[in-house]
């Protein structure tokens, strides 16, 4: 069979395919069956590991259910919900800790990622590819290793950060110094620094966004006499805003579930003064340390609802600040 024969046939098939799209005959039903067959792993997984557990979780949240004594599980209706929302101040404190952290971490993370992307996109930078690789590399460092390293680097007595500040003349070491892990007011900043290595993905996505800005826009702005700042605010930021939005949503959802770093450093103690008692830490404590399945499921549902509401709000603000060029919409 020759190549032309194949391409002719495929042309015919393409033609027929187009015709077919208008109707829904037996062939289409057969193809649709194949489609279902291909996506079936996910469909099965979705029922087994998402829908069913979510429903079970909702049901659990109405039970007083200790894992150790499953036979004594009793239906208590909204008891767990009332406890979580009105009678357990730890829940609210955990949310304050978590949201305060998100409020500090998110903007700082977005700014650092955007700033580094600008730098790594600069035409003036020599050795751009090497710089990109090296700035990204720490994102690959496993979280556990990065946490242990930053724990020591930020150590108030012996860490390099405080030693450097001390050398610069700041009174960083000692009781009156900067006690990164012991001062409750510093904790959000400390943990932000602890996670700063993880911005690599955000940098890369920002970079791709920056490269997608048409140069003609800059050229015409330059002709109009717009300076660097003006071009930044009126061209670069709006054009990259979809990318910033994407990073914001993923960052927000991730931060609500912040767990590894505080758990590795302080377990479930919340040291200092409950400042590291993040919501997931409290959830872990109730659900898996105390094995309170009912209350744990309730806390998980509250987390889900909060995440959903905050995501919807974030999407709601998008039309005020996220710029989508017309052809994309």
């Amino acid at each position, binding site marked *: 069979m020759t190549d032309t024969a*194949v391409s002719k046939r*495929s042309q015919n098939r*393409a033609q027929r395919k187009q015709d077919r799209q208008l109707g829904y005959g037996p062939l289409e039903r057969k193809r*649709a069956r*194949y489609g*279902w067959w*291909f*996506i079936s*792993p996910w469909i099965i*997984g979705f029922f*087994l*590991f*998402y829908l069913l*557990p979510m429903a*079970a*979780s909702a049901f*659990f949240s109405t039970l007083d259910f200790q894992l150790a004594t*499953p036979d004594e599980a009793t239906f208590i209706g909204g008891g767990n919900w009332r406890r979580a929302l009105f009678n357990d101040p730890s829940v609210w404190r955990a949310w304050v800790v978590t949201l305060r952290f998100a409020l500090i971490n998110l903007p700082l993370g977005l700014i650092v990622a955007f700033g*580094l992307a600008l*730098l790594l996109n600069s035409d*003036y*930078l020599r050795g751009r590819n090497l710089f*990109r690789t*090296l*700035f*990204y*590399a*720490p994102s*690959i*460092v*496993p*979280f*556990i*290793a*990065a946490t*242990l*390293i930053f724990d020591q680097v930020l150590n108030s*007595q012996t860490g*390099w950060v405080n*030693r450097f500040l001390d050398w610069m003349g700041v009174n960083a070491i000692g009781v009156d110094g900067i006690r990164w892990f012991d001062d409750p007011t510093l904790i959000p900043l400390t943990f932000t620094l602890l996670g700063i290595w993880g911005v690599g*993905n955000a940098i890369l*996505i920002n970079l*791709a*966004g920056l490269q*997608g800005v048409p140069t003609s826009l800059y050229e015409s702005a330059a002709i109009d006499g717009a300076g660097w700042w003006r071009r930044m605010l009126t061209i670069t930021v709006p054009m990259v805003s979809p*990318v910033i939005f*994407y990073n914001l*949503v*993923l960052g927000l*959802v991730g931060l609500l*579930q912040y767990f590894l770093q505080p758990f*590795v450093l302080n377990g479930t103690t919340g040291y200092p003064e409950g400042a590291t008692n993040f919501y*997931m830490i409290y959830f*872990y404590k109730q659900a898996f340390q105390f094995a309170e*399945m009912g209350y*744990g*499921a309730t806390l*998980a549902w509250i*987390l*889900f609802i909060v995440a959903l509401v905050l995501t919807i709000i974030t999407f709601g603000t998008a039309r005020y600040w996220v710029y989508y060029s017309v052809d994309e919409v």
Partner: protein
Amino acid sequence: MSTRTKPAATAFDEAAARIKRRRLLTTWAVTIVAMVLLTVWLMPLGYAGVTSLKTRDQATEPPILPTATAKYEYEGREYDVYQVPIDDGVRELALVDKGRESSGFIDPADPEAGIIEWEGRWRTLEPVRSLNFAWGNYPEAWETIDFPSLLFWTVFYATVTLIGAVISSAFVAYGFARYKFRGKGVLFMVLMATIILPPAVTQVPAYAFFTWIGWTGTWLPLVVPQFFANAYNVFLLRQYFLTIPGEMEQAAAVDGAGPLRTMLSVILPQAVPALTAVSLFHFFFAWNDFFGPLIYLVSARDLQPISVGLTLFNGVYNTEPQLIMAASFITLVIPLVIFFFAQRVFIQGIVITGVDK
């Protein structure tokens, strides 16, 4: 004529030279700023590397590099070496006879010369410090933490779930990319929405269920669900499949290949870059995964992966910073090496997921 054009040309040249100078200056400034930032950025890695080679005492001492006072062995005993201002310069001499106002030294370079007397208080002298790397931290950390077991289970988890997650995701992605069926759009939205679903909401009943069927304390609850595709992988692979022209598949279908054959022998070979990217993502994800292994394997010490094992190690050995840094360094080396070899594919993958949304 020529006399009139000449000054204009020089003025133009001057302007061009000025612009060139400015460009060069900016290039230097930007590159230097980047280098300074990079130094700060990578400083913690340097800290980890250096500290992992210090002894317990050096780890908390100010000198950046692991140094110890130099020693010299003379007639069967060890003596400290000092910087002694003697004659017309400073010599490095071993203090063998400590005296109040004058001391006796030996020149390590020339011990035959005998004892050199030096007038002055030896306590005012600066000891000579020399580099000494405590390589022993690595074997010590390796053994105390039982790294072979941690590494084995981490690699086991990463590879087994990688195979499961990538293959299942490839099927699902192919279904979404190439077939038309009712409700496909809605299903795809649901799939994408699972990205923002906090895993916590399914974890409690899953844990209760897996405890009930006796799977806690094994890897099964962590491995089995990975064989049912996940949103990130499906999304990335679907995006890639959509860029592959359909002609070859149609040709294969004409030749009598079924949908499965077509996918395996026509699409997969063309999607190697995307499959590699997804595999790498999954590998790093598994290397980092913490919450699941923590709740299911907290009491099964022999089965724990690095993330959980290192956490427990940190709790027990928090007075031995150098061992913790050695352990951290071992942990980060493998992913970092893989990244440096595969960075192009990897970075493209991130950009696809991020930009195409």
